[in-house]
């Protein structure tokens, strides 16, 4: 009903708004409105779990798909507090991809690391530390059973998410002797009952007993540099922040969040839920605004942070009534494909594979409204970016995870390449895989992304031209205007077709400039 009303509003607005403005397509949203303050908001894990499993929060597509929002007239996501166009439109060197959000400020190796806060509960212990330079980090560790697994995953995935355009913290693999950790005079520890007491050196010893020790007696961890700004808590994958005037697009309809599903599928980030995001109130050029970040990638690449991920990860939600009924009734004789997946006997890898990986069917632990709403054009937008990260970059990024076992490194590289290619095969051809349109020397040029990445053979496409009225959007065919040559004069539109009639791309040009792209499938 809400969708229908919105569409009616949109339709009613048609006569008054031109199809394209003079600044289309915009590649950067206007500077954000000033947000004087915003309240920190927490969420409940359990509430989030049950709400998404049974509550269908947000505007979820049922019968009628809802097109993505927060995009420019090319269907691209403008730079904003959510997203920054990086490797696809502004090719990054391998070194830049490896550098990710930053690689110049690891914790200082000289001097002690002062523990400001400690996490002793649960199965993934950690510290918040301040190094000799006064920079703060979250120091996280691997589980005893799987040295290097979660720390490597955290570093590798953060760099790849960054290259894909998302905001993430700087993560560093660090090794250190126990003596480097020093407890601050005022550092308090919360025990299992939430009671605070002063933290002591013995507490550090206790925590490090739960951490794998390297052969040289040192400990390995991932130091995640604290992001600047006032933490406001996670963002949800539906609705908007009520206190953020810049947050005008429902999150379940943001293309960057819908497309995030493919990045999560690629990296095995089944823990892609609100709790692993962080809103920060940051200040830039005297203006405060809410920056949206992804955090905590210890549960990627086959890791569940506290051990190998479940083999179910990515294949089924934690609860699926139909599958549970089948297992209940069949005495387990029905064996899902994922139960036959083969995983390496490499503790540093966890359960990460590519053979059974189903790019189109991949799911996180429980439904994510943005992922559920994903449409083929959202997927194309994400897939073309993932495919743009080449083998060499993948190899270099995985090396940054500093696996001590070369077999682990090789396995992760191989799986990332194969999973990336599966994503390309699944999604690039769901729409006409044409992109990077340009008007050059009187011709309309474009790239067949599927052919470029060898997921489909090169094809020929038919182009038919029409004139369009920018005030009404109406198109009038130009008799005999076929092929790549752009008709002269006025606003024109190219309709491109392949051998599948439903799949078309409309490319709008004004004054010899591509101003709009519309896909149908």
């Amino acid at each position, binding site marked *: 009903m809400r969708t229908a009303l919105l569409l009616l509003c949109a339709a009613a607005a048609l006569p008054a708004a031109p199809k394209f403005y003079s600044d289309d397509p915009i590649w950067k949203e206007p500077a954000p409105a000033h947000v004087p303050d915003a309240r920190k908001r927490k969420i409940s894990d359990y509430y989030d779990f049950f709400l998404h499993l049974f509550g269908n929060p947000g505007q979820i597509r049922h019968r009628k798909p809802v097109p993505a929002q927060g995009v420019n007239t090319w269907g691209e996501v403008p730079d904003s507090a959510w997203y920054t166009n990086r490797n696809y439109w502004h090719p990054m060197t391998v070194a830049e991809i490896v550098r990710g959000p930053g690689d110049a400020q690891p914790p200082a190796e000289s001097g002690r690391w002062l523990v400001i806060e400690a996490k002793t509960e649960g199965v993934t212990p950690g510290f918040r530390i301040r190094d000799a330079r006064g920079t703060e980090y979250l120091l996280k560790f691997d589980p005893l059973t799987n040295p290097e697994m979660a720390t490597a995953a955290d570093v590798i995935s953060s760099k790849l998410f960054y290259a894909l355009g998302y905001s993430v913290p700087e993560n560093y693999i660090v090794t250190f002797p126990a003596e480097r950790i020093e407890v601050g005079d005022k550092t308090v520890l919360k025990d*299992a009952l939430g009671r605070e007491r002063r933290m002591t050196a013995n507490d550090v010893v206790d925590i490090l007993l739960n951490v794998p020790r390297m052969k040289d007696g040192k400990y390995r961890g991932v130091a995640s540099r604290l992001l600047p700004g006032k933490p406001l808590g996670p963002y949800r994958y539906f609705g908007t922040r009520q206190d953020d005037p810049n947050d005008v697009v429902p999150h379940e309809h943001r293309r960057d969040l819908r497309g995030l599903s493919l990045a999560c599928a690629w990296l095995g980030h089944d823990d892609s839920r609100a709790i692993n995001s962080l809103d920060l109130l940051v200040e830039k050029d005297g203006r405060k605004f809410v920056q949206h970040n992804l955090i905590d990638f210890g549960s990627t690449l086959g890791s569940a942070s506290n051990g190998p991920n479940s083999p179910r990860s990515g294949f089924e939600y934690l609860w699926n009534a139909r599958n549970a009924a089948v297992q209940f009734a069949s005495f387990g004789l029905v064996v899902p494909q994922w139960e036959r997946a083969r995983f390496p006997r490499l503790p540093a890898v966890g359960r990460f594979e590519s053979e059974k990986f189903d790019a189109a069917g991949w799911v996180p632990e429980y439904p994510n409204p943005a992922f559920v709403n994903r449409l083929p054009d959202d997927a194309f937008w994400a897939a073309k970016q993932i495919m743009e990260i080449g083998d060499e970059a993948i190899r270099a990024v995985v090396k940054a995870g500093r696996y001590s076992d070369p077999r682990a490194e090789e396995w992760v590289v191989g799986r990332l390449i194969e999973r990336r290619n599966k994503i390309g095969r699944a999604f690039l051809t769901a729409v006409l895989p044409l992109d990077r349109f340009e008007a050059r020397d009187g011709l309309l040029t474009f790239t067949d992304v599927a052919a470029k990445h060898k997921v489909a053979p090169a094809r020929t496409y038919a182009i038919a031209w029409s004139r369009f009225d920018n005030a009404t959007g109406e198109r009038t065919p130009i008799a005999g205007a076929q092929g790549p040559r752009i008709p002269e004069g006025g606003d024109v539109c190219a309709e491109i077709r392949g051998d599948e009639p439903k799949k078309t791309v409309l490319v709008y040009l004004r004054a010899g400039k591509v101003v709009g792209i519309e896909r149908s499938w």
Partner: protein
Amino acid sequence: MRSFVLLLLAFGTLAAQDSATRAAEIEEARRKKAAAVKPETNTPLEDRLIHIKEGKVLERISAGIGGVRAKLGGLATGGGFAFGPEYLRRDLAGGRLMLRSAAQTSLRLFQQYDVHLLAPDLAGRRAYVDFYALHRNFPQLPYYGPGADSEKNDRSNFRLEDTDFDAAAGVRPFRHVTIGGSLGYLMVNTGPGTDDRYISTERKFAAAAVPGLARQTDFLRTTAFLQYDSRDIPGGARSGGVYAVQFRDYRDRELKRNDFQRLDIELQQFIPFFNQRRVIALRGETTLTWNRAGQSVPFYLQPTLGGSDDLRGFRPYRFYGDNRLAMNAEYRWEVFSGLDMALFADAGKVFQRRSQWDFSNLESAVGFGFRFNVRNNVFLRLDTGFSHEGFQVWFKFGPAFAASPIRQAGNPRVL
């Protein structure tokens, strides 16, 4: 048209229609939102759940007030629902010492009082010491007569009253390996059972046929054990195994008629397949006793068979004998991440002479069960076992095969 609507939905519908640029349209949408901003809030339910988690309300309830809390269950099977206060402190000596004490009674007036003092992580978690004291008064334990030939219809009941002190120490020299020993003193008294539905044991069976029935005694008990435990998750194992052997020497300090030695061997193996979503769980367990001429194993210290953890199609304590052999096999499959189901088969027997240790004349049971888990740890088990003596339904907290005869820091209540 699709993108046109899309664009309007994106930035336009909230904006003034006369925006000259896309940027102006976006800014107009923001201005409208700014006029209506309000503090970010949660639903009251979510706020309550956050409060419960952050305030550690469940942990505090579980921990009680000042360490005092309610303890439910945990007495002998058949004793009825048990409850009582428990005092638990895990924060003594900077968290290096645990003290637990409980006083429980059940609906059938079973009583148990115990104190457990444990230093679980000495020498960098390579050693532990503990002290355990226990007093039990179970007024109506079932007894069906000695040996494998006892009849279901011969059920009687007796009172078991015992007091036990035990000090233990163990070391973990290697990964998975624990070696330990203990020294204890056990005082036992038995008496007429209070369950009117069944005859009292001393009236049903001749004292000559049931060692220890007429007179009870005190024991000095020494124990040595060795255990190799490679289970992946002890609370819900899917791979690995437990191999344990324990030797105990009981010295009769009063009557000098009940000296005996007892050897317990337990083997558990978990064989996963289909990525550990299917598991074959196997357990073999045997208890053998030795006694010199003129000495006997009193019935109240004899191994028993029948119940929720061995022969699940039989009543608890269905068989008593000097020696015991029990075997269990389970096929478990995951229904969803929080529930496994199981088909199981149990077999076992009690026998008088060690030379009768073989696989003949086994009692058997089959059944099915449900195992509910949180983070792979089974917290609730519902098993139904069938045998030629009928069927039994077991509702238990914790995983199957949890009742080990081996004295460990976390399992001190082994008499």
